[in-house]
């Protein structure tokens, strides 16, 4: 008697699915107050729609992972990551937003591979980047000085390092803050353009680097009290990575819901 093919087919289950069944307890549905909290979160998201660059109305989930989904809308692919037990409804009434367009020290090459294989998870992000989870469950800030050798410079710097055999690209504001690589959406880039119309001043630093043939422009603002790009311990920074023509059209960028702006001349104004 031979083994039925479907028994072998089951052997192709993704490890996320197997890992879930290996846990001793089943992750139950959220209790009532959590449902209300989720509803409140949904309402908050709805209120944010005018400010979001992607609105999901008829998005179709093309790959469902344990803690992420890859959805398709109008021919574009988006990665949505969410906390355990809170699955957005992707039905016709569902609305979800693309997560903040930041890549925390992720290995771009590895991220691309995982995305194309449909196997990208939060855990990958944590493992690849070496981040531990913070109390809120999100990737924690990394103390670079505790990890990187040689010690990183205190001034703004963009570069590439190899750690445990993996290449990482980084942007660092100063020795006190974590490096964060941000790839801006087109909308945010336009906002930035409006905001930064002058040459670099004492409060705004614009620097351009070429790394492995990629032009990388970094804008850093110090000392501002409000900033459309977020706030971090008194310093503000954001960066735009241009990678032409090699990266701009890569499918994986669509996969993580990012859009690279394509106006190379304007960036270094």
């Amino acid at each position: 008697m031979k083994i039925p093919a479907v028994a072998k087919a089951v052997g192709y289950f993704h490890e996320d699915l197997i890992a879930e069944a290996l846990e001793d307890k089943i992750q139950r549905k959220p209790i009532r107050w959590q449902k209300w909290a989720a509803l409140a979160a949904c309402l908050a998201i709805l209120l944010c729609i005018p400010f979001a660059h992607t609105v999901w109305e008829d998005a179709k989930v093309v790959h469902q992972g344990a803690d992420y989904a890859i959805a398709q809308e109008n021919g574009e692919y988006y990665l949505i990551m969410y906390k355990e037990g809170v699955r957005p409804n992707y039905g016709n009434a569902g609305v979800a937003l693309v997560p903040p367009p930041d890549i925390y020290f992720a290995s771009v090459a590895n991220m691309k591979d995982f995305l194309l294989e449909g196997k990208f998870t939060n855990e990958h992000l944590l493992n690849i980047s070496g981040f531990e989870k913070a109390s809120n469950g999100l990737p924690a800030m990394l103390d670079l000085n505790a990890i990187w050798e040689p010690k990183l410079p205190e001034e703004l710097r963009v570069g590439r390092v190899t750690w445990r055999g993996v290449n990482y690209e980084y942007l660092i504001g100063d020795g006190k803050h974590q490096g964060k690589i941000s790839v801006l959406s087109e909308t945010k880039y336009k906002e930035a353009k409006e905001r930064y119309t002058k040459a670099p001043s004492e409060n705004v630093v614009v620097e351009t680097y070429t790394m492995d043939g990629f032009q990388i422009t970094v804008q850093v603002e110090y000392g501002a009290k409000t900033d459309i790009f977020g706030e971090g311990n008194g310093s503000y920074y954001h960066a735009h990575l241009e990678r032409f023509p090699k990266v701009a059209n890569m499918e994986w960028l669509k996969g993580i819901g990012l859009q690279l702006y394509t106006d190379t001349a304007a960036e270094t104004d």
Partner: protein
Amino acid sequence: MEDRAIIALYQTRNEQAIRETDAKYGKLCYQIAYNILSRHEDSEECVNDTYVGAWNAIPPAKPTHFRAFLCKITRNLSLKRLAYLRQEKRNQDMAVSLSDLEAILPDDRYAPGLTDADVGRAIESFLWLQKPEVRCVFVRRYYFFDSVVDIAKRYRFTESKVKNMLFQTRNRLKEYLIEEGIEV
């Protein structure tokens, strides 16, 4: 030892990796093999082969879920051995029952051109649409070949509830596979 550390041992070709794997996951792998083969010697052999499989796979593989990664290897090896034993008629008294699973999608009902991987992905897509308890029970039964009794104990369900869940899930899955054109 943390999984990440064990994987690092594999990556540096340190044989301690196998000892650590055995200490941490030996019992789990053995249980999976035994569920399928129900023979001590064969199960032991499959577990040892699992370590060899992991050794050969890492690197380049970098498993995200190391435990699940090992389970996968053990399951595949055990099924291969089961097929061999059945072919040789060396053991007619196998514990694992594949008939339920076969009833969902008989071999001769596969749509033309489909691979096992295609079917596996379709079943997985279906499972992600189900409630977590339904999904877990299904995977425990048909991936790990746990008995209904063990599943009921594990999740503190009654046996009849587990049987009913499996029955309903199989029916829904069958409909799903027909709708998706997997089963003809």
